[in-house]
């Protein structure tokens, strides 16, 4: 298992190289003149050339890319072309916000979605099941920004319970954004949990567990849900990854300075160092999440664990026998 984790972390290096190369090429393909666009049409050509030289834009594409990689290896992502200060300052300021919003919303989504999903599965065809599945369809059908706007209208402007925007009001500012995202994502969790539990609850081994005289609560949570965890971990990982980079809309609606808006603005401002740094950050996070997902698979399912440790296992019995003798 340990070996596998090391291997997976090492594989991240070429993967990141590929991702950054693609993004770097895409940005470079644009025919924007960064020096000209920063200094404006009135600036003299000498000044523009000087700035482009400073940005390294007078060098060939591959050399610029390798210079960027060399910097990135030393965690030096360069200065922002737009703000003229190190991009790490902005990344460091915004990254915690993104992480906070993502974890809070996924946490809320799990807390709401999983118990209701299990309940809907256990009481299949009951009124509760019908209400929950209909509601979750509704939530999935309404775009998140609609829910967000309605939320702002009701809870900020009418009731004045929470601040509408920004992150300056401490924990209060996180309530509405994370609840909005969390509730909207909980709909997916509810449906995934429901179908996953419905699938396991019909398995032969659940009948075996019942035949042992186990109480229903243990049948559901200790056996059926336990076996439903695998697909749930998968989609939790995917949603985490999606939220990290894709909460742009939420960040805009609630004016949260996060990585999503940073990427968007830096692309619009043709701020190459900023874009590269932010996207590299997101890609690395996504890969780490996927690694955690794969490790969790092994924790939850012994059959997957066996695949990772099969090499070691061949030796173990021989050792045990030796010890016994």
């Amino acid at each position, binding site marked *: 298992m340990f070996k596998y984790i090391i291997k997976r972390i090492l594989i991240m290096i070429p993967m990141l190289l590929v991702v950054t190369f693609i993004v770097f090429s895409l940005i470079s393909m644009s025919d924007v003149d960064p020096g000209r666009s920063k200094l404006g049409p009135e600036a003299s050509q000498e000044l523009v050339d000087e700035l482009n030289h400073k940005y390294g834009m007078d060098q060939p594409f591959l050399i610029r890319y390798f210079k960027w990689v060399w910097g990135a290896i030393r965690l030096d992502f360069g200065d922002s072309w737009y703000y003229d200060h190190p991009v790490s300052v902005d990344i460091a300021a915004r990254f915690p916000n993104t992480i906070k919003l993502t974890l809070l919303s996924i946490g809320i989504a799990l807390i709401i979605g999983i118990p209701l999903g299990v309940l809907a599965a256990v009481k299949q065809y009951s009124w509760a099941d019908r209400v929950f599945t209909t509601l979750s369809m509704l939530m999935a059908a309404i775009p998140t920004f609609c829910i967000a706007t309605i939320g702002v209208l009701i809870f900020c402007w009418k009731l004045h319970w929470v601040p509408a925007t920004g992150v300056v009001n401490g924990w209060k500012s996180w309530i509405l954004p994370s609840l909005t995202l969390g509730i909207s994502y909980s709909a997916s969790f509810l449906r995934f949990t429901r179908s996953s539990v419905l699938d396991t609850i019909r398995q032969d081994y659940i009948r*075996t567990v019942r035949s042992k*005289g*186990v109480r229903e609560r243990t049948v559901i949570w200790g056996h059926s849900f336990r076996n439903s965890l695998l697909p749930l971990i998968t989609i939790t990982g995917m949603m985490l990854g999606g939220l990290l980079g894709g909460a742009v809309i939420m960040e805009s609606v609630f004016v949260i300075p996060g990585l999503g808006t940073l990427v968007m603005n830096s692309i619009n401002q043709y701020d190459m160092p900023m874009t590269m740094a932010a996207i590299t950050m997101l890609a690395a996070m996504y890969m780490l999440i996927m690694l955690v997902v794969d490790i969790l698979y092994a924790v*939850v399912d012994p*059959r997957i664990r066996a695949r990772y440790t099969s090499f070691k296992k061949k030796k173990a019995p021989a050792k045990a026998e030796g010890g016994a003798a």
Partner: protein
Amino acid sequence: MSEKLLEINGLRIEYTSENGPAKAVNGITFSLDRGQSMGLVGETGAGKTTTALSILRLLPKYTAKVTGGEIRFDGRDVMSVSEAEMRAIRGGRAAMIFQDPMTSLDPVITVRDQIAEVLLLHREDLDRANVDAEVGRILEMVGIPAARMHEYPHQFSGGMKQRVMIAIAIACNPELLIADEPTTALDVTIQAQVLSMMRRLKRELHSALLLITHDLGVVASICDIIGIMYAGEIVEFGTLEDIFDPEKKHHPYTVGLFGSIPNLTMDAERLSPIPGLMPDPTDLPAGCSFGPRCPHYDPARCGSTDPVGSAGTPTEIPIARKGQHQIRCVLYADADL
């Protein structure tokens, strides 16, 4: 404590299906004494497993319904006991071995935990500290080294998994052991091992056994009494001697069943399978349900082969009895047996 451990009287079970109610069990009656073993034999779809599941009240909640009759376990009506009392019976006083060991064990939980779960529920003498030793002892009883208790089901072969299933079932010394085709999913050499082990365990534990199978050879090697099931009815019932004696009278279906088994001493060119198929349980014939396949079929006495719906009232088929031997067929009167 009554002598009769299990009594089933006129049990009827229906499943809901798209084509109307499927009558899986149609008024079966039998009883099982303590320590006795009974074989329930029949083709796939005869209602054997449904009967077995109903004894532990494990029928699927939404699709199956007991529509008549009663089940008594040690004198108590299984249908009317509370869920908590039922849980105390399940796994404790009555345990079940399922057909397919490949899918019947929880894949993500160790064998030790699966056996310990039933032990901790029903055995008051055990707590978390000494349960490991008992799990080991039970595993050794079914021929699995105790050292393997911390392994997962996927690390065991099919035969070993069935041994684990049996270990779970016998863990609390049940008074009644229900085995639903315990050897069907196993290959022949493993079948023999598992069977001889079950014979030994039954002797050691003094449990009553309800063995469900379609294999007459399995029944002959382990059972005292036998019920032959067809389309949800017991068409013939008797002791091992009654059923396996070719000199005695038998239901045409029993004769057909034996005709589909190869016999070394008989000079037959080929096996003689019973022609036709089991009737559709949503559309049972008004007369004898074996009528459509029976070589002795007589419309005047056996009733119509048309479904009850189109042929009116069902014809009652008489049961001929002598001692324990019973045959549900118009060919015989009590005196003929």
